[in-house]
């Protein structure tokens, strides 16, 4: 019989060893999969690694993939820390992309710094307002935020589609012959192009730096402010929070808005750093929001770990795109990511609980 009991203490070494072992097991499983399908494992892993980090321009592309994951990862981490399962990061990112692009178009002509700051603010606002809906519903009506945030993802996805494909909205590009046949978003003015910095051939987009800044802010907020203290108390025991006189409902809305704002900035970054237009197809196919939840889970909701995991998974994504072709197993990226997640998730059990295997020798008389 297997008995699972909650651990009283979580020794430090466990929290390091278990994830490492989990990752190792994941790679082992991936190796088995590759072997079973007649691909050379070591060679494949090597190619992945090169394509992700070592090849010419790989790091830059990795940053491109990692930046949105960092934002959505932070979005999820911020909320999940308080047991608020905001799975609306996807929609909140779209919302930020919409508001960011709108501001960029409206402010065209103003100095670049103004436009960029405007985009960031607008993106944050868009995401925050959207996230407030499930927040308020949860805080004041006890409606599950899982379901409401999920539903809103679909709604915003349709809105963003509508803006470009279904209507002649402000955001849609109506100039030129192509526009009526291949609808796409208006190209954002040059002032709305976010700067990037090249260091030894590595191009660092502004979004990446903003993500790092957000991570620092989030870390600081959660570790060193009263707000963060309340979040940890309520996340640990809602009853203790009420005992201490904390305003639980307001906190729920505030945390959801913060979470949405971060995803929204990610949306604005997509507009300003990479796509330079509102790109519904690209955004909805990328699934950054859901991937972000995965990133946050792997990072165990620590903001700096989120950055690291986003970077690594971004590398994996990048490698996947680059290597797509006849001689590389298609879909390996997803398989690897999935295996990693499964193993880490499964490993969590061993950190939180102690597993004991007991023999069934005892008779009723002995245990009496």
């Amino acid at each position, binding site marked *: 019989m297997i008995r699972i009991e909650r651990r009283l203490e979580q020794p430090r070494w466990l929290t390091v060893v278990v994830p490492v072992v989990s990752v190792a097991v994941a790679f082992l499983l991936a190796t088995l999969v590759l072997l079973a399908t007649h691909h050379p494992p070591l060679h494949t892993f090597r190619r992945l690694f090169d394509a992700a980090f070592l090849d010419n321009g790989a790091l830059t592309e990795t940053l491109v993939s990692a930046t949105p994951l960092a934002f959505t990862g932070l979005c999820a981490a911020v909320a999940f820390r308080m047991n608020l399962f905001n799975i609306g990061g996807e929609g909140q990112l779209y919302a930020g992309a919409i508001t960011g692009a709108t501001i960029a178009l409206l402010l065209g002509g103003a100095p670049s710094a103004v436009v960029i700051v405007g985009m960031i603010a607008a993106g944050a606002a868009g995401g925050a307002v959207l996230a407030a809906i499930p927040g308020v519903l949860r805080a004041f009506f006890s409606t599950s935020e899982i379901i409401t945030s999920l539903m809103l993802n679909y709604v915003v996805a349709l809105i963003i589609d509508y803006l470009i494909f279904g209507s002649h909205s402000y955001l849609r590009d109506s100039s030129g012959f192509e526009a009526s046949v291949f609808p796409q978003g208006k190209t954002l003015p040059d002032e709305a192009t976010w700067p990037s910095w090249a260091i030894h051939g590595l191009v660092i987009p502004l979004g990446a730096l903003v993500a790092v800044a957000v991570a620092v802010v989030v870390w600081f907020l959660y570790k060193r402010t009263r707000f963060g203290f309340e979040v940890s108390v309520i996340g640990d025991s809602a009853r203790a929070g009420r005992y201490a006189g904390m305003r639980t409902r307001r906190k729920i809305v505030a945390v959801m808005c913060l979470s949405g704002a971060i995803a929204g900035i990610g949306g604005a970054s997509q507009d300003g750093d990479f796509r330079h237009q509102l790109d519904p197809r690209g955004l909805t196919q990328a699934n950054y929001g859901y991937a972000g939840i995965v990133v946050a889970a792997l990072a165990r909701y620590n903001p700096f770990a989120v950055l690291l995991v986003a970077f690594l998974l971004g590398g994996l994504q990048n490698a996947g795109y680059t290597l797509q072709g006849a001689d590389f*197993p298609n879909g390996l990226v997803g398989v690897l990511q999935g295996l990693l997640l499964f193993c880490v998730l499964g490993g969590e059990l061993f950190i939180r609980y102690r597993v004991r295997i007991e023999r069934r020798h005892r008779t009723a008389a002995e245990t009496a």
Partner: protein
Amino acid sequence: MNNSLLVVVLASGIAYGTPLLYGALGELLAERSGVLNLGVEGMMLVGAVMGFWAVQRFHVTTTLALLGAIGVAALAGALLAGIHAFLVVTLRANQIVSGLALTIFAGVAGLSSYLGNDLDLAKSPARHQFQEVFPKSWQDLPVVGPIIFGQSVLVYASWLCVVLVALYLTRTRLGLNVRAVGESPAAADAMGINVSAYRYAHTLVGGAFAGVAGATFSLSITPQWIAGLTAGAGWIAIALVVFSFWRPALCLVGAYLFGAFAYLPFVLQARDYPWAPPPELSQSLPYLMTILALVLVSSRAARLRFGAPAALGRPYVREER
């Protein structure tokens, strides 16, 4: 008349809505036992690819091949669901993250494409496909012809499934037990019901349904394997469960609604309708209605009748009662 907009949309709505229906029925069963499985899209794709593979490989008559293919698809879906079940029921992992992991693992960037690629499945169309069942003369009947008699076996089977699932939940002992597990695992446990077993079983069956849903795509709708051919149907199925308030009959209605709305823009475009309402608007209505309904359903009584199973998404641990 049979070429009218309404008939065409309804007939296609049913055809397109069938995989949604299968997926939703499966997810409904899992959620009724308290397990949220966001991996439907992944399970669908793997079901699609494995069903397709089976049809290409099974050198038997059409009927047997298709039957076997459906079986393989269901098995594939169930196996994947088994991973999720193991993680969330036995290992007490977070259900949301596990479901997402499943989608990533098996989805368009994962296992399904991996298999499709490695097994060289994109090369040719399916050797056998699900065709219409009824003779042409029946299909030409006004209105009901194309809508009711112009469908494949999978559609008719799905109707049977709706009836079976509905009867199962409301009229059988097992169905009562699983509903108890989803609403109040503590009460069920106290009455001697094995909560884990029920959750495992229903999650696996949910996966099987998702697999069949995927096979509907690769063997009936687009009888070909294309990576990612479900195009988000799995996600729609999840929304459909909420939209139908966890009731199988409403799943049917909802699936065809969603299916019709998904198909509508193509039809309208082909026919050059100038006044068509933006399809995105109509497509978003179901989701908006669901949110509205969820809010209105915040009164205790209504929530108990229409709301989610109370224990949905939470792991059950006996000591922590």
